[in-house]
């Protein structure tokens, strides 16, 4: 009897989740999808399919024109992509690229525990459904709060004002939000900062192509929080170091940076104002470009720092 009651509760939770998703706009569902795609948990696939089902249902009744119809896609598949033999490979399998990361699922067995397309109809685990309910509830709150404006239209760069006091410097926006918690270490190791930004579909000119001789990349970290992505690259040369720090500030700025009391100057390049200052014998440049707050700091001369900045825009 308790089993029947639990099943009923689970069905109820699932129905409520679907109802909540149904009430969200397609744009918000797509944003939720993007957020979910960052998760490495296989169990999140249940949530992803629930979102996809809602969007698909809407596309069927009211096509947005954003997505190719299945008949045209099937024709293209038959004509352009269908392999001629079982020896064929993925279109993006360029041998050395996929040596360490096969295109095929390596952990299909794990997926068999998930109630998606499976042949046995065991109920979804209660924990997973409750977790999904919490996720949807929190997303709904976030999306329908005042920050939705910033999310939908991008961070208000015009409202961001460079503000400095005698010992701090930072960009300030009208909307200051809690940055949330770090979700975990990066999964992919990158060999340079430009590659990492490209992988995150960041097209803005942010990375210097010139770095002083003898400096080489020592560390590259990418930290993702629910509210921002931070790229941190450190270049070393003996005891000297240069740090490049790029933050996606679509939802708020980094806050302030420490600086020495006296020196703040402005360097304009490519119609972007770069604020140059010193802090503890290091020179620091801070600027904003599109939705990104950028910083270079290190044991550099002002001439070298400006040369690095110039090189960002030379490509």
């Amino acid at each position: 009897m308790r089993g029947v009651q639990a099943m009923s509760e689970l069905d109820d939770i699932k129905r409520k989740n679907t109802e909540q998703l149904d009430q969200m706009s397609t744009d918000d569902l797509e944003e939720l999808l993007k957020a979910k795609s960052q998760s490495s948990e296989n169990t999140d696939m249940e949530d992803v399919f629930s979102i996809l089902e809602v969007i698909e249902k809407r596309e069927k009744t009211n096509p947005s024109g954003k997505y190719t119809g299945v008949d045209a896609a099937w024709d293209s598949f038959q004509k352009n992509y269908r392999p001629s033999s079982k020896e064929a490979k993925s279109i993006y399998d360029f041998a050395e690229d996929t040596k360490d990361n096969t295109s095929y699922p390596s952990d299909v067995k794990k997926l068999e525990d998930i109630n998606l397309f499976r042949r046995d109809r065991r109920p979804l685990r209660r924990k997973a459904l409750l977790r999904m309910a919490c996720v949807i509830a929190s997303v709904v709150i976030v999306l329908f709060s005042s920050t939705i404006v910033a999310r939908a239209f991008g961070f208000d760069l015009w409202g961001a004002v460079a503000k400095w006091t005698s010992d701090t410097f930072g960009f300030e926006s009208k909307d200051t939000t809690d940055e949330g918690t770090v979700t975990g270490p990066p999964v992919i190791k990158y060999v340079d900062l430009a590659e990492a930004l490209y992988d995150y579909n960041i097209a803005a000119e942010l990375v210097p192509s010139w770095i002083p001789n003898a400096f080489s990349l020592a560390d590259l970290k990418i930290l993702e929080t629910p509210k921002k992505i931070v790229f941190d690259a450190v270049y070393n040369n003996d005891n000297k170091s240069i740090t490049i720090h790029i933050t996606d500030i679509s939802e708020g700025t980094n806050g302030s940076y420490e600086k020495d009391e006296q020196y703040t100057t402005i360097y304009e390049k490519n119609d972007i104002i770069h604020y140059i200052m010193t802090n503890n014998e290091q020179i620091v440049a801070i600027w904003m470009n599109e939705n990104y707050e950028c910083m270079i700091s290190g044991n550099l001369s002002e001439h070298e720092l400006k040369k690095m900045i110039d090189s960002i825009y030379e490509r």
Partner: protein
Amino acid sequence: MMLSKNEQGLFIETLYREMFTQLNIYAQNVLRDRSLGEEAVQDTFRIACIKIDELMASSNPKGWLMNTLKNVISNMKRSRARMLRMLFVAAEMNEASFGSVNDDIDPEIMYGGVISSEDFALLKKIVLERYSILEAAEELGISVEACKKRLQRIKEKFKKNFE
């Protein structure tokens, strides 16, 4: 029980028609690009055809496809990022003589004869202009498979000469 080729074909088509839209919505949003998203899904079903026995043995074909799509997207991003890096590494090695990567300099000169103007144009379309392989192939009037092989050869040339 072993299925015939026709039965396997029917299985793929049924699955394709059932799953294409959902997978396409996912890929397009993750890649933020219509043609690249669609190509990722097409490649997923290409792999499904190649690994048909594994797919049919799976108790969760829908999950199998989604997992494959995620891996395809990941490989796609990695391949493109490496091609971009390849362009810049090669350009940096020649930078002292020829300056930066741009259209004013003949790529045949800039890349020391390693790459032809046609190959450079293809690489630029794929890497910098975010063409799908199908879009690039259609412009060149060749098949997707031939375009892939051409990219593979360009990569090998770069690797041999600049790494």
